[in-house]
C-alpha cells in the first residue's frame, strides 16, 4: 500500500513540531545522539513492537523522514485465497493457536500501521468467541485485514453480513416476525453514528430490514421469507429497505463522519481531537468517499499526533507487544517466530483478543495504567527469563537500559527509581532484569 502525497499544511505543522523547542540540557545523555522523543513517540504509535535498533536509528532522523520511512516499509499481512493459512480449520485448533497467530503478526518487525488498524477494527466492530466460532472469528480477521485502511462503507457492509457478527449480535436468529434489535441498535449507537442521532423507531425499522440473514456451514445466506418486504421509515426516509440500503443510509448520515473519525483519532493519537480538527477530518473522510487511509494520514501528519502533552495509554496487548520487543521476543523458542502465546497472560492483563468485554470493545482509557494492571504486569515480568542475547547486549547501567528501550526523556521520578535500583542491585544480569522491569512498568513506557 503506498502512502499518498503529504498534505502541505500537515507537513508544515510536523516540521515545526519536529524541531527541538529548546537546547538539550547537560543531562540529556541520549537526546543529542538520537534526536527527538517526538519522533520516537510517533514510531511507537505506528508499530506494535518497534525494536530498539529501529527506534534508535529513526530517532536520529527528523520525524517526518522517520514516519514516511515507516509507512513505506511496512508489510501488509493480508493472506489471499491461496495462502496455506487458509487451509487451517481453526475450529479444530486451540484458542491459544489463534491468539498465537495474531500476536505473531503484531510483533512482526515489519508490521505497522495496517496491523494497528486491524486491532482497532476488532475493538470497534467487535465480535466475541462467546458467540462466534474460532473459524468465524478468523474469517472476520481477514475481513479487517482487507479493509483496515480501505473503505469504511465497504467494511460496514461486509461486517453487517459477516458470520461472526451475525452470531455475536443475534442477526442469525432474527426474522421479520420477531426482529432482533441487537445489531441495528449497535450499528447506529456504537459503530457509525453515536447516540442521539436516531430514534428507537429507527432501531425497530433497522431490525426488520436487517432480518433474514442466516449463518450456515457453507456461509452466510439471506432467506427472503424471513425478511421484511414492505415500506418502513428509517432515519426519516420511507421505502423498502434491505441490509445494504440501511448501511448506505447510515454511512450517508451527517453524524457518521464525525463519529467515525473521532474514534479513529482517539485510537491513533490517543486523545480527543479538538472540534475543528474533527471537522477537518470529517471533510477529508467525506471528500474521499469514506476511504479510511486519508483520514489516518491526516491524523498522523496533523497537529495532535506527536503533541508532547498528549500521551496515549498503551492497552495491555500493545504493552505486551512492546515489552516483548524490548525483552527479546525471539527468546523463548529456538526456532522462533515469537514467544509461545498463552491466553491466560491476556486474561491476567484483562484484555483477551476475540473476547471483548462487550460490544463496545475495550475501553481506551487510563484504567490500563491502574493498580491491578501494574500488579498483573509485574507478575508476568517476574517469571520472564531474559534471553542471553539481551543480557549480552544491554549494559547493566541506567543509561544502558534506557538506551536499549529508546526512552530518551524520562521524568525525575523514573530516573530516581532507576538510579536507586542500580545502586542497590549488584551489577550483573539481575540488575539488567530489574532495570528493564522497572522501565517497562514506568509511566513513560506505559504510555506511548
Amino acid at each position, binding site marked *: 500500500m503506498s502512502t499518498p502525497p503529504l498534505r502541505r499544511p500537515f507537513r508544515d505543522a510536523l516540521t515545526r513540531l519536529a524541531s527541538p523547542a529548546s537546547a538539550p540540557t547537560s543531562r540529556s545523555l541520549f537526546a543529542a545522539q538520537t534526536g527527538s522523543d517526538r519522533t520516537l513517540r510517533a514510531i511507537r504509535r505506528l508499530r506494535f513492537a518497534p525494536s530498539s535498533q529501529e527506534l534508535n536509528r529513526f530517532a536520529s532522523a527528523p520525524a517526518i523522514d522517520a514516519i514516511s520511512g515507516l509507512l513505506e516499509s511496512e508489510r501488509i499481512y493480508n493472506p489471499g485465497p491461496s495462502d496455506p493459512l487458509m487451509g487451517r480449520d481453526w475450529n479444530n485448533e486451540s484458542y491459544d493457536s489463534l491468539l498465537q497467530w495474531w500476536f505473531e503478526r503484531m510483533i512482526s518487525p515489519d508490521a505497522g500501521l495496517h496491523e494497528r488498524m486491524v486491532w482497532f477494527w476488532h475493538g470497534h466492530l467487535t465480535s466475541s468467541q462467546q458467540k462466534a466460532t474460532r473459524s468465524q472469528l478468523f474469517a472476520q480477521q481477514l475481513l479487517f485485514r482487507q479493509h483496515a485502511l480501505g473503505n469504511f462503507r465497504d467494511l460496514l457492509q461486509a461486517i453487517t453480513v459477516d458470520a461472526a457478527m451475525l452470531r455475536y449480535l443475534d442477526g442469525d436468529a432474527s426474522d421479520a416476525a420477531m426482529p432482533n434489535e441487537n445489531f441495528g441498535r449497535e450499528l447506529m449507537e456504537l459503530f457509525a453514528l453515536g447516540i442521539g442521532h436516531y430514534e428507537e423507531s429507527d432501531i425497530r425499522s433497522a431490525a426488520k430490514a436487517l432480518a433474514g440473514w442466516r449463518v450456515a456451514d457453507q456461509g452466510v445466506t439471506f432467506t427472503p421469507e424471513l425478511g421484511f418486504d414492505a415500506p418502513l421509515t428509517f432515519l426519516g426516509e420511507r421505502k423498502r429497505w434491505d441490509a445494504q440500503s440501511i448501511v448506505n443510509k447510515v454511512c450517508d448520515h451527517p453524524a457518521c463522519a464525525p463519529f467515525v473519525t473521532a474514534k479513529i483519532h482517539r485510537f491513533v493519537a490517543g486523545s480527543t481531537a479538538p472540534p475543528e480538527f474533527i471537522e477537518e477530518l470529517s471533510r477529508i473522510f467525506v471528500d474521499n468517499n469514506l476511504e479510511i487511509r486519508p483520514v489516518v494520514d491526516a491524523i498522523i501528519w496533523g497537529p495532535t499526533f506527536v503533541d508532547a502533552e498528549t500521551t496515549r495509554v498503551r492497552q495491555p496487548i500493545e504493552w505486551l507487544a512492546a515489552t516483548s520487543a524490548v525483552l527479546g521476543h525471539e527468546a523463548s523458542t529456538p526456532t522462533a517466530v515469537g514467544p509461545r502465546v498463552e491466553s491466560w497472560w491476556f486474561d491476567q492483563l484483562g484484555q483477551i483478543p476475540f473476547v471483548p468485554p462487550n460490544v463496545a470493545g475495550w475501553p481506551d482509557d487510563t484504567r490500563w495504567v491502574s*493498580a491491578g494492571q501494574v500488579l498483573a504486569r509485574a507478575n508476568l515480568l517476574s517469571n520472564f527469563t531474559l534471553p542471553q542475547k539481551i543480557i549480552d547486549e544491554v549494559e547493566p547501567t541506567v543509561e544502558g537500559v534506557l538506551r536499549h528501550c529508546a526512552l530518551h526523556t524520562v521524568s525525575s521520578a523514573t530516573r530516581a527509581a532507576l538510579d536507586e535500583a542500580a545502586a542497590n542491585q549488584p551489577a550483573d544480569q539481575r540488575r539488567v532484569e530489574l532495570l528493564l522491569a522497572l522501565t517497562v512498568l514506568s509511566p513513560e513506557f506505559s504510555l506511548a
Partner: protein
Amino acid sequence: MTTPTPPDQPTSPNDRGSTSESADSPSEPTGPSRRKFLGLLAGGAAGAAGAGALYVSNQDGTPNATAPETANGADPSTSSSAPPDSSSTSVSPDDMAADQTPNTLPASPSTSVPLPQGPMRTLVVVELNGGNDGLATLVPYSSRQLQKLRPTLLPAEDDLILLDNDFGVTRSLEKNWNQGLALVQGIGIPGGTGSHFEMERRWWSGTEMGATLATTGFLGRLCDELDQGQPITGLTLGTRRSPAMLSAKPVTAGLTNPSVSWWVNQQNSWFTNLRQGIETMSAQTGSAQTGSRQTDTQQSESITIARNGLGSALDFADVLSGVDVSNVTDRYPANALGWQFAIAAQVIAANAGVRVIHITHGNFDTHDDQDGTHKHLLRQLDDAMSQFRIELAESGNTDNVLIATTSEFGRRPQQSGTGTDHGAASMAMLAGPVENGRFGEHPSLAKLDENDNLVPTLSMSEFYATLGEGWLGVPASSVIDAAPPVVPGLLKT
C-alpha cells in the same frame, strides 16, 4: 524477570494464574497515612502463587508458568465490590475519616438518608449469568399450570424443601436454606427483551427499559458514593471485570486471582528493589530530566494517573496481602466460584475498605438438559456460599454482610425439549441479616406476557434500591434513575 519463582505454584481451584483487570486507576495520591492504615490491616503472609512466565521456557526448559484455564468466553464479566467494615479493628472510624482523600469529582447528594450506624456493611453480589430459572429454584410445585407447561421438568417433591402447600425450594440449596435464605419473587425488568446482552447491560448499568443506558455500572456508582479514600472500595472477582462495577471515580478494581501480588512482599532483595523502584517511580514531584523538553507542569494527566497507578498497586497489594489462597481447596469446592468466595471471605476479614464485591457464576443458559445443569450449578453455589458464610461467622461478619444474587432474566415457563428458552421475571436470593422464606408476590402462571413469559412483580430498580439504600445507606436517588422505594420487610435492619 527471572528469579525467584514463587514459592509454590498456585494450587487454587481454578488455577487461574491470577490477575486482574482493573478498572480504574487509583485516586489521588494518598500519602503515608493511608499506607500506614493498610499496613495495620495487612495480616498474614502474601498468597503464594506464581503466575506463569511471560515466555514459556525456563532455563531448564521446563515451563514455569501455571497455565490457567484459557479464555473460553463463557462468562461475560464479573465484578463487584464490597464495603469494608471499619469498626472491627484497631483503626477507628475517625482515623479513616482523617485519611480521606479529597474528592475531586462532583459529590452526589448523600444527605437524604443517614448512613446506617454501627459496623460498616459489605454487599456481595453473585451474578448468575445466562438467566437463572426462578421456577426451578423456588418451585410452585402444586401449580396445575406449571405441571402442564413443564411435564417432564417439574422436580419430584423429594427434591424440594416444602415451604407450604404451594412452594418448595430446591434441595440443591439446602445448606444455605438451613443457614437462612430469603427468596425474593418475581424480579425482573418490566418490558425487557430476550437478549442476554441487552438485559445484562440493563442489570449491570441499573437502567430500566426505555431509559438511556447509564455509562457507569450500578455497583460502580454505589462505590463512588461509598468511597472514603480506601485504595479499593469495589472489587470484581472472576475472569473479567464486570461492567456492573464501572465507576466514575477510580474506586473499583478487578482481580481474578490475588496471587498477582505475590511478589510485592517477597523478602528477597530483587523484589524488594522492584517494590522500592515502583514506590519511587510513583512520586508525583519529579520534573522531567534527561534532556527534557517537558516539565512537570506540562505533564499530561495520563502520566499523573499512571504514577498514581504505580503507588496504588502497592496499596492494593497490601489489601491483598492478608489473603492467603494456598489452602482454599481444603475448604471450598475446587472451582472458579469456590475460589471467588474464598477470596471474598478473606478480603472482608481483612477489613481494608472494600464495600462491594461482585462474583460471577454460570452458565445458567439452560436451553437443554436443564434439570441436570441447573441442579449442578445451584449445588456449586450452595457449597461455596455456605462455606463463605461459615467464614463470615468466624470473622464476626455475619451481620455485616449481605449476599444478593442477580440474573439477567428467568426462563420461559413452557419447557422446550429438555430445557427452557429465555424468559422474563425470575427470582433472587438474599442471605445475611434476612428472614427465611419467600417474599413478595409470585408472578402469575395463568397470566403470561405476549411472549409467554412471567410478568415481573418487583422491578430491578426496587431490588437495587433495597441493596443500595436499604443495606448500604446510599440514597436510591443518587444511584438509580427512578429513585424507587426500598422494598419494606426484606432486610432485618
